[in-house]
């Protein structure tokens, strides 16, 4: 049970809904609602914006592929005992 009430996408302003579309493109998946983390980050675009850009920069293909990096991210999340 989340500590906060996660707002539906429709409750966010238009600027945040554009971020949700970018999130959908990033994951290449049609969620019924944007992922919970996207909605959390949209709560404060001045935090979520740069945080998301740093993530995308880190995850972009370089010496390692996006797939390899997703697996590294999964391992880090596992070691952090995070089920999200």
């Amino acid at each position: 049970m989340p500590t906060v009430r996660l707002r539906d996408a429709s409750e966010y302003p238009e600027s945040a809904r554009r971020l949700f579309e970018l999130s959908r493109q990033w994951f290449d998946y049609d969620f019924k609602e944007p992922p919970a983390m996207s909605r959390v980050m949209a709560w404060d675009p001045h935090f979520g914006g740069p945080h998301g850009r740093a993530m995308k920069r880190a995850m972009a293909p370089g010496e390692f592929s996006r797939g390899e990096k997703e697996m590294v991210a999964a391992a880090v999340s596992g070691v952090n005992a995070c089920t999200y």
Partner: protein
Amino acid sequence: MTGDDRWYEAAFVVGITNALNVVADGLGGAPMRQVEPETAPAEVRTIFADIRAFYGTGGPAADVLGGEIPMPFGLVAHDPGYLADVWAAVRRAFSERRLTRRHKEALAFAVSLTTRSAFGTAFHLAELRRLGVGERGVMEVVGVTQMFSSYTKIADTLQLASDMADIAPPDASGVPNPGAG
């Protein structure tokens, strides 16, 4: 990264990396000496030779850790049978199969960084470089590790439920033949 076999490989790398780090970081400063190659019994010397070959002469074991044999192996070598099994598991986990060795080292580096293992971070960073990963590649792994160390704590603080669980397609392949490499 579809297919369960890759995820099994990754999980084994994460697990055995943590096992090595626990011994190295936990016992490294304790009054427990490592078995030295010069005085080791023959069966241990044989394993040490294989370890040297796997990590390369002059690799991180020598350059970073100040010794020929990575610390966790030297520490557990007091029981040669145990060393043999631990090394066999490490060798298997880090050998190139569905995942490349450099990818496995990236996983081990990320896990070591996340768990604040001084030994593991230095060792796997040196291994990444030995395998040809440049500063940009290292920074990529650092970035992923750092950002997902942030996301996970935000998710935990807010107790978010996963919304990714149903995305991955089920893997229909069977249990592999363990002898098939």
